[in-house]
Structures are given as C-alpha cells and as structure tokens.
C-alpha cells in the first residue's frame, strides 16, 4: 500500500475546502494570459516567462497552505511525491487528478498527464489559424510549471518542470514533464555559525 493512501484528497476536497465556480477561475486566468499577450505584443516567450514567475511565487505560498491543510509528512521517494502531487495537490486545489506515467528507469523523471477539460483551459481555443506562431511558442498553462517548481523548491526538491505537450496546440494530450535534480540539504546559512 502506498504511503499517499494515508491522506485522502477526496475527503479534504469534500469537507475542508472553500470552493468557487471553476468558470470564474478559468475566466480570470484567461484574462491574465490574454492581457500578457497584448502587453508583450505576442512575444509568447515573454508571456510564458511571466506566467512562470507568477506561478513560482504562488507555489511558494501554496505549499504552506497545502502542508497546513493536509499534514502530509516527508516523502521517502520521488514516486511517492508524484502521487501526493497528483492525488492530493491537484485534487484539493483544482479538483482534478492528473495521471502519472512515463517513469524513467532511475525513477527521477515522470510525466503528469492533465485531464481534459481542466479548469485552466476549459472553453479556451488558441487562434492557431490566424497566428501560426502561437501554437509553437505559447504554453498557455505555464503557470502550473511555476507553481510546481516553486512548491517543490520549498520542500527542498530541486525539480525541472516543463510542458512537453498541450492539447491547445493540437497535441494529443497535455503533458508536464518532471525531473528531480537533487534533494537539497537543510544547511546552516552562512554567517549564522
């Protein structure tokens, strides 16, 4: 039995989470992305980067909300971490449970497959026909990568997080790749000795 089964994302979602309409969330995020595209004159790399920064800052705060609400203990393996991210993290914040697959042989790299539709992209269509650049450059849900990277950094996990596929771009599915670089040590900061 995996350790994550000790915590039940469904129960927390049902009984211990204040909820709002997912459309409101979709619209809010949509208006952020749309305005960033206008602001940066459709330089989608800038848009991706700005969304990533937003997400990173959110992740630094969201992890504390997550730990305080769930009481989750430290994971022993990255496999366990990925289960917690999907079944509890995504569940209690976005009410979706991505599937985890594509493990590398060293158990340090895996993929999160987001279900469709999801609360960031529902009803969203990129203007692919009028702007051919957009489907090659924009990662519409890039904020999620920032959130995950920021949140994991706070629990001492240095992880690369990036999109490799997105249904909005015409791909067959929406896939986030996670790669554990290293587990950071808690050290006495310089000047504190």
């Amino acid at each position, binding site marked *: 039995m995996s350790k994550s089964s000790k915590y039940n994302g469904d129960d927390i979602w049902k009984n211990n989470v204040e909820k709002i309409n997912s459309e409101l969330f979709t619209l809010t995020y949509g208006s952020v992305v749309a305005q960033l595209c206008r602001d940066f004159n459709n330089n989608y790399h800038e848009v991706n980067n700005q969304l990533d920064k937003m997400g990173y800052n959110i992740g*630094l*705060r969201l*992890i*504390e*909300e997550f*730990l*305080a*609400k769930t009481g*989750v*203990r*430290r994971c*022993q393996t990255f496999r366990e971490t990925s289960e917690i991210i999907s079944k509890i993290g995504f569940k209690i914040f976005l009410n979706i449970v991505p599937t985890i697959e594509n493990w590398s042989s060293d158990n340090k790299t895996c993929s999160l497959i987001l279900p469709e539709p999801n609360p960031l992209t529902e009803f969203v269509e990129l203007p692919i026909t009028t702007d051919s650049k957009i489907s090659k450059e924009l990662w519409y849900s890039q904020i999620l990568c920032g959130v995950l990277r920021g949140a994991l*950094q*706070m*629990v*001492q996990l240095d992880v690369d997080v990036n999109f490799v596929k997105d249904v909005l771009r015409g791909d067959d599915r929406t896939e986030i790749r996670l790669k554990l670089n290293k587990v950071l040590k*808690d*050290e*006495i*900061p*310089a*000047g*504190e*000795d």
Partner: protein
Amino acid sequence: MKTTGSGSSVSLNSSTANHLGIINKNNDSNTSKLLFGILYSLKSISTKLIDEETSPISNALKSFTLGKYRIHYLESLTNLKFILITDIIIDNLQHVLWELYSNYYIKNCVENSLSPVEFKQSTDLKEHELMGKISNYNFIHETDHFLQSLSVFE
C-alpha cells in the same frame, strides 16, 4: 518574531515573558542564533540515530529540556522552525506549535501578500533584513493573543 536561515525561519516566543505584546525580547540578542545552532545540531543527531528510510516513525526533534526551561520545537516540511520556550513543567506543546504554523502563519504571512514567505538571506541585504523578521503587526498581535489565552500561560 525572528526568522532566519535559508528557506527556514525561527519564530521565537517566550511564554515566560511578562510584558504583554513584547514577547520576542531576545530576538535582537545572540540567543536566537545560538538556539538555531543547538537545534540544528540536535536535528542532525536525531536523523543519525535512526534509519529514516526504513523507520515508520519519524525521529523528529520535538523538545529538549534545560534545568529550568523546556524548548518546544516544530519544523514544517518547508523548514520553518517554530519554537516556544516555557517553564519545565509544561510537557508538550506540539499542538500549539502546529496551530502557530497552520493557522497564524498561514493567515498572516501566506495569505498576506504584503508579507514575504521566503527568508533566504541575500548578500546585499542590511542586517535587519538579513534576519528576515516577520514583523507585521497582525502576526505578532494575534500569536501573542493566542499564546496568552492558553491555560499553560501564566
């Protein structure tokens, strides 16, 4: 409140302080730095005593005692360190420390976008910034009020 460290912080409360609202009077002394060092060492020892990989129970440091005082300790997975110093008769304050984290820190720092949540020091910061104090009024006032409302507080 004092916080220090890389992605980590020390919240120093002394429920033995007599002054209402002036709880962290030791913050500007070296005591908190020393305390940080002791806790760091004890933590290292605790992890060396057991094999964390196989042990089902965590060997986390929860408190230690001196002749007169007990130091209560809780560390979040994000390395925030919550510390209370009490008289030795106070046995266990883990639930109080958890409350400081899961309620007061969340409300007054995490959900307060005017408060930082990362206290890592940067070389070009001045001394008081380097210590990364949580110094917003609501956090100090509310934790203060909470601690004084406890039955262990006299």
